[in-house]
């Protein structure tokens, strides 16, 4: 029972980390690459929101804070300390430049989740729970029902004063 509670707390922390940093870096505003625009238009055609569609498209086509969170947790677990999170930030930086994406969402997400894991690991939530939590978090955004999750992302973006393109 202790493990289930730890996985739930890690899921909530990973979800908040990657969604808030991505919306703050402006992912729902514009499509970064051409594939993201196609995925966004397809979600809008099926009844969702265009800003939320661009958010999902940017997650698929380029490493962003979701990739940074997952790889930083993997690095922290494998290396046994915060240096794994820094190495993950370096890999995500290379991946961003390979996809021709001039942003820093991935590195910011990786560094912030490394700090969060370093604090929380004193309370007994080890990094492997964050790895599973991140997979469950990305399932809720991209795997269940696209129109509903895109509308939720657009609502959060408006609340954070990010102008969503219509």
């Amino acid at each position, binding site marked *: 029972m202790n493990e*289930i509670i730890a996985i739930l707390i890690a899921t909530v922390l990973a979800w908040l980390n990657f969604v808030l940093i991505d919306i703050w870096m402006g992912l729902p505003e514009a499509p970064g690459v051409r594939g993201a625009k196609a995925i966004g238009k397809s979600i809008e055609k099926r009844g969702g929101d265009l800003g939320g569609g661009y958010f999902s498209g940017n997650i698929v086509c380029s490493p962003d804070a979701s990739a940074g969170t997952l790889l930083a947790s*993997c690095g922290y*677990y494998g290396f046994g300390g915060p240096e794994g999170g820094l*190495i993950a930030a370096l890999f995500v930086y290379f991946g961003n430049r390979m996809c021709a994406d001039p942003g820093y969402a991935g590195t910011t997400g990786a560094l912030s989740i490394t700090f969060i894991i370093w604090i929380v690991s004193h309370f007994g939530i080890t990094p492997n729970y964050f790895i*599973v939590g991140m997979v469950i978090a990305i399932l809720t955004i*991209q795997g269940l029902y696209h129109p509903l999750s895109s509308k939720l992302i657009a609502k959060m973006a408006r609340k954070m004063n990010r102008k969503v393109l219509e």
Partner: protein
Amino acid sequence: MIEETIIACIIIYMILRLFITQNRLERMPYLNVINFGVAAVITLKNPSPLGAITSMVYFILATVGANAIAFTISKVKEIEHGD
């Protein structure tokens, strides 16, 4: 352990949804969830620095590959439906 079971169930659910749907662009987010799952399993089964590095290399290359597939789907749609 329980983490492996959770990720295996998520991957099986995603692959069945990917096989069933007909819309090409709806399959891309399901493929992305599968990439997340495989990258997580590589590190969970090999808790060593080399396992973490392999997981990072796999995930970055899989994201660039999914970018190429999405770009090609949009290009094919543009060529066939007459610009």
